[in-house]
């Protein structure tokens, strides 16, 4: 057991941090959001630096790829890191340029970067289907939640091998957890900092025990989600570990959204304040794969071997 990053992991995250400080972050995110655009530049920088190959890399692997997804989420990278760094490599599929949409056959609804995406991967009951998307058929929908969303119509679907849906869904769960984790940590840190700076009734907001306990409980949830996610990646996204990680992470996400906005008061509800850059985008992650309730049921089907409800 070793809960500390290895030298390789540290070096990798340092390099990624440097790249993201140049090509991602709050300012970049704000600029791109105006245009509702995918960040092709960031994607190509990551590709050139080898970050899209981490999963199968001999010197790295799925855990390193998961750590990278977390960082990209934290820095608001306007790409689709979960398919690019985890799901496609896990399925042994090539990683194309531009956004890739992940979907599951039980749910429809608008998807992130649906208008720009050329590829959609849909998890069926056993197999995945890979299909093309055409921009003419995508129907953008207005949304205040930060990601450009569109309804899409998959064409010329190609069924992949048996069992691929399971692999896809498990790595998707690990990926969405890692991405959420990075984003949640930033929203949390902003909120904690706010409680230290803000004065009420002549004392720091953060000195009020009623708020301290809520923040402390959030930190417990976040740390639990973090280590469950890393552990699931380390274990190769087994059915149970990936469902547990996603269930716990999404529970944290629900709580974090409420608490960060409550504790930062009105200023946290403005576009000027950075908090919403993370909290609004997080809501798209919350909806994936059926969300909290579905992740929790997946824990049960994997642990106790019962049929899905």
């Amino acid at each position, binding site marked *: 057991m070793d809960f500390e990053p290895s030298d390789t992991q540290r070096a990798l995250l340092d390099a990624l941090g440097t790249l993201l400080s140049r090509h991602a972050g709050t300012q970049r995110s704000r600029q791109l959001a105006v245009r509702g655009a995918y960040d092709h530049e960031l994607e190509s920088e990551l590709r050139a630096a080898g970050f899209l190959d981490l999963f199968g890399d001999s010197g790295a692997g799925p855990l390193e790829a998961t750590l990278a997804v977390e960082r990209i989420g934290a820095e608001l990278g306007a790409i689709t890191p979960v398919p690019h760094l985890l799901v496609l490599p896990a399925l042994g599929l090539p990683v194309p340029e531009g956004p890739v949409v992940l979907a599951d056959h039980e749910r429809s609804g608008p998807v992130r970067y649906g208008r720009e995406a050329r590829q959609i991967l849909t998890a069926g009951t056993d197999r995945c289907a890979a299909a093309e998307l055409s921009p003419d058929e995508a129907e953008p929908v207005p949304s205040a939640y930060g990601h450009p969303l569109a309804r899409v119509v998959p064409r010329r679907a190609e069924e992949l091998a048996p069992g691929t849906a399971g692999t896809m869904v498990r790595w998707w769960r690990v990926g969405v957890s890692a991405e959420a984790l990075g984003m949640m940590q930033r929203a949390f840190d902003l909120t904690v900092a706010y409680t230290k700076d803000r004065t009420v009734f002549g004392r720091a907001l953060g000195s009020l025990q009623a708020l301290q306990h809520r923040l402390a409980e959030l930190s417990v949830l976040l740390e639990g989600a973090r280590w469950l996610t890393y552990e699931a990646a380390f274990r190769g996204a087994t059915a149970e570990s990936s469902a547990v990680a996603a269930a716990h992470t999404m529970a944290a996400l629900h709580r974090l959204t409420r608490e960060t906005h409550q504790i930062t008061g009105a200023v946290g509800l403005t576009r000027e304040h950075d908090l919403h850059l993370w909290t609004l985008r997080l809501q798209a992650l919350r909806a994936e794969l059926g969300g909290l309730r579905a992740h*929790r049921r997946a824990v049960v089907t994997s642990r106790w071997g019962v049929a899905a409800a």
Partner: protein
Amino acid sequence: MEFALSEADAAFRSDLVGFLDRELAEGWNRSEHGLGSAVYTDFSRDFVRTLAAKGWLTPHWPKEYGGGGQGAWQHFVLGEEMWKRGEPRGPQYMNVNWVGPSLIKYGTEEQKAALLPPIARGEVFWCQGFSEPEAGTDLAALRTRAVREGEGYVLNGQKIWTSYANEADYCFLLARTGSVSDGRNGISVFLLPLSTPGVEVRRIDGFVGAHSFNELFLTDVRVPGNCLLGEENKGWDIVRRTLAYERVGAPRYARAARVLDGLADWCRAAGLLTDPGVQEQFGHARALCEAARVLVHRVIDERAKTKEPSPMAYQARAAMVQAERAVGDLALDVMGSEALVEQSPGDAQFRNSLGAGIAAGSYEVQLNLISRLILKLPKE
């Protein structure tokens, strides 16, 4: 980062599991009798001797004190496997987790020679005499007095909530040797044989599982000077370390997770496990048990490396409380009135979970410490 036990530790676990499965095959049923019940405690006396003979009672102690010199992970694996089975060591988990290590760290050679071997052989019970009627969370407000008389001390005062005092041979007792105004700086630790004249134990009727509370009345209890552990008035340092050992020493999530498995079996038999709402509650509780596990593992990793406890332990302990509560609540929610039947799979868990956030440092105290030491939130 690596989330697997070393080969040696994994081999130890599998030996241990095989041994426990054989040893506990008969005469032991985790759901039938709760930790603290007479049946349980009786069982534990023989069981612990068998463990000691195998070298698995105190494997993490240094060899010179009857231990096996093994690392933090083997000690922890032992605890995890024990709690999974409902802790068949009974009260002796306290001996090996924190009483022994505190004696090893602070005891004189004479104290170690006299007190450690019986613990390592599994022959004695210890209890913890910290809390008093006016000193719970605010432990430093304790009033039990120890006054020097010749070479020894005279103890007067009252302890409360002392688990296992009715069975124990010794008490790890806190008393005030300085004045009340010294607060934490006037407290000392005494190693008190409970057979000493002037000690009276009275049971308090509680309902946290089969566990029994006790009161300890001390009236002119005369003890020799060698009952003092460490230096006079320096007891608070020992307490801090003891509580750190204790905080994650009992991996209660392992028991909660095992109970949850039992509840899943029950629900399956009752045809409830395919119900989506029931599934969601199980998924929630299982995730909390797993989160507690990884957070405790993180603390053990730190202990294995640096041996100095950090504030992360407070997050781990808070997560354990959340897990125990979630499983207790689930039991009542899904089993309905069947959970109210004594010794049903849900009964002990629910009643235990009521005390989970109180014993060994309350939940709120963990949150206070996280706020201050991890989040660095300001005091008033």
